[in-house]
């Protein structure tokens, strides 16, 4: 009995995947759980595993090709079993059906219901029926085209224009090296052309889609406060002296921990807006924005409020490394209840961050700068840091956000308060 291999949704938001590399070739024997291929999702490069034992046949997707979730990309058949009607491998004609293969060869391939994302995917792009058919026949990804019809609809003309251009936006025909590195974000133009069109990578597309659902529909407001980091710095130095070789605590770790603790005291800010309800979380999972090549991703430190500082530091380091090598697993970047974005290392004094829906808030952390500050009628040099909270006004009101920020500020200005 043949088993169809589908492009699977290997991340919760994945709508299509780029086949990076086949680990098995046409005619190879495969076992359940074995890696068939590497697939680039919108977040990372993941393994696509075999769901049946047998021989890999009818490999329909070339390395480098992008196909929607739910698309049939190969078939696993029993040894000796003829392949169902359709594309032939050129071999099945000679292979006599084994006695075991009592099912007629022409019987339809069983449809394991493809992941739910597949059905929704087909209707997401605005395109005329004719454009859809033309794209399907010619293997063009409609998502990569810019529609020139009413309301940005992809029409016939757009497909014809795309076909006339070199393969840049037509994913199917782009020849790709066996293991392509992640596309370099901004290729340097040597041709002197005024601009260069670079197709969106999977991650960039997801960023665009996700962030557009944020700043537009989410009514943001912003609260900024300046935190005196003098005592946090002293605490950090003391801790690191004590730890010696056993590890190091960074300012970021302290900020993550303090944020998590402050959220336990301000549950109103630890929430998801869910269209018809608000989900207030009892657990605190902190999303930590990490810049990766060509984008950003928000891995999650779960239960950050109860984890020791050292563990938070270790986890943050591991997750950041994984994010940069694009090896994050879905559970490592989903489910955060609140996020922290830190651009301090880039010498940014202050900025505002875009909320990561459905979360209700995010804090943007600037760099720690020495400033003259009046303390007890004396001007003293103090290390100061600006944090800005973005709030979804549908969940958090001004005073609610300000209350949380005040607690966070207190904890950072007096790290001992974290013990309270």
């Amino acid at each position, binding site marked *: 009995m043949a088993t169809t291999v589908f492009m699977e949704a290997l991340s919760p938001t994945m709508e299509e995947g780029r086949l990076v590399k086949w680990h098995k070739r046409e005619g190879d024997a495969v076992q359940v759980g074995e890696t068939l291929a590497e697939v680039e999702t919108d977040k990372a490069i993941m393994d696509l595993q075999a769901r049946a034992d047998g021989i890999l046949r009818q490999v329909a997707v070339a390395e480098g090709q992008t196909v929607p979730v739910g698309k049939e990309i190969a078939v696993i058949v029993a040894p000796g079993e003829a392949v169902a009607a359709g594309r032939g491998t050129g071999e099945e004609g000679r292979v006599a059906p084994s006695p075991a293969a009592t099912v007629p060869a022409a019987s339809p391939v069983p449809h394991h219901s493809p992941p739910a994302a597949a059905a929704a995917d087909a209707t997401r792009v605005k395109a005329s029926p*004719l454009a859809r*058919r033309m794209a399907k*026949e010619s293997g063009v990804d409609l998502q990569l085209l810019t529609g020139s*019809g*009413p309301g940005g609809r992809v029409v*016939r003309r757009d497909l014809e224009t795309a076909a006339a251009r070199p393969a840049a936006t037509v994913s199917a025909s782009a020849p790709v090296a066996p293991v392509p590195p992640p596309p370099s974000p901004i290729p340097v133009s040597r041709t002197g052309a005024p601009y260069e069109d670079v197709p969106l990578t999977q991650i960039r597309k997801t960023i665009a889609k996700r962030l557009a659902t944020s700043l537009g529909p989410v009514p943001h407001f912003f609260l900024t406060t300046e935190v005196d980091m003098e005592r946090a710095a002293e605490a950090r130095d003391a801790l690191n002296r004590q730890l010696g070789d056993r590890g190091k605590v960074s300012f970021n770790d302290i900020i993550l921990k303090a944020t998590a603790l402050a959220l336990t005291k301000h549950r109103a800010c630890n929430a998801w807006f869910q269209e018809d309800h608000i989900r207030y979380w009892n657990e605190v999972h902190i999303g930590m924005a990490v810049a990766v090549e060509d984008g950003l991703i928000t891995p999650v430190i779960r239960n950050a409020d109860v984890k020791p500082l050292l563990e938070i530091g270790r986890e943050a380091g591991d997750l950041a490394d994984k994010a940069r090598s694009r090896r994050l697993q879905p559970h490592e970047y989903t489910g955060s209840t609140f996020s922290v974005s830190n651009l301090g290392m880039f010498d940014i004094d202050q900025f505002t961050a875009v909320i990561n829906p459905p979360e209700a808030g995010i804090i943007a952390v600037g760099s720690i700068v020495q400033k003259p500050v009046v303390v007890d009628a004396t001007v003293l040099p103090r290390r100061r840091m600006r944090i800005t909270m973005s709030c979804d006004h549908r969940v958090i009101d001004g005073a609610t956000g300000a209350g949380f920020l005040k607690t966070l500020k207190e904890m950072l200005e007096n790290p001992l308060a974290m013990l309270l």
Partner: protein
Amino acid sequence: MPNQFDVIILGGGPAGYVAAIRAAQLGLATALVEKEKLGGVCVNIGCIPTKALLHSAYIARLLREAKEFGIEAGAVKTDYGVAMQRSRRVSDQNSKGVEFLMKKNKVTVVKGTGVLQPGKKVKVGSDSYEARKAVIVATGSRVKGLPQIGLEINKTTVISSDEALFLEQAPASMAVVGAGAVGMEFADIFHAFGTKVTLIEVLPRILPLEDAEASDALTKSYKKRGIEVLAGAKVTKANVGKDRVALDVEANGAKQKVEAAVVLMAAGRAVNTENIGLKEAGVQLNDRGFIKVDQNLQTTTPGVYAIGDVAGPPMLAHKGFREGVVVAEQVAGRRPHPIKYDNVPSVTYCHPEVASIGLTEDQCKERKLDYVVGRFPFSANGRARGTGETEGFVKIIRDKKYGEILGAHIVGSPASELIHELAVARENEYTVEEVELAIHAHPTMSEAVAEAALDSLGRAIHM
């Protein structure tokens, strides 16, 4: 400056008055210059009065056939003069309607002939007007005769539609030269009013721009009711007498004489590009005599646009309407949806009506397109049987690979109304499958559209 406007439009026909309304809607100070009645040829001596006369002809035919439907009408007597008077009232109502629309939209109507001056200026008589943004030329077209074969319009025995629309009575006999939309419609009208009609077309078939199957259907229909149809027929000589015209006609190598009390010239129109200052303002014409325009309908003089018949074929009111809207929006700084000229429906309102959009089957062949034809005759349609309107068919030509609707051709009593389903489909790039998937009410003649779409897929239900 009292004579300054944002936009000045020359010509109050379909293209011009629609441009004026749209410009005014968008807040532009707009002036419209027209020497005659508002509405142009269409409203006054074209589309509108002919539709009124065609309906009179339709009623005459219905009454003659009424007995079959259980209605005895006695001897049917027709009076072209009365029908003509009614058609004039309809035209006047429509012209007044346009006048009202100008007032409602606060468009200044200037009576007279507008003459273009360099620098977006227009002279009407001794008055000067200046446009801040644009001048739009929409001066339209007029009928022309064929003086080269002695058929100059003399307005008595050799007439054009301009005169035919004002006849007090139907002539005993008429030769209609030209079997495009105008010729077909007048042949239909006068035949119903008792005139012996001979239809002469120089090209191999009547309705030469329509699909060959439509031409065939109309040839049969006209011949059956007693209209003489001479296609591939050339008038070589005309002898214009005082109350008679004798034509030498050569068809398929054979010569024959056609005599008629009146010859109606229904071939060719000339555009109104003379004496309106085009040359002086730097507006050039193309080699076919139309005003040369770019894809934004701008002429060779920046800020001067041309729309409607003067801007090129098809010379149809609805094409002018759309150009009027598009240019007005452009001048107002909008970015209108570009016009798809291959998606302008074409309709002839004779009986049965002929309506089409897109390519004919012959054009598909010439372009070597891979196509499939779907057909459905009204004789197989329940509603059509009920009304006795079983003449004609729906023909849909689809692209074989993608199902794109390449062309659609309808012959039948409601063809002019049915074609728009396919216009919507083509404009939105629906394939035959979307047309078929839309549920069509039963019983309607529209069902034939869905059935033709199905037939192109090889699965018509009622055939």
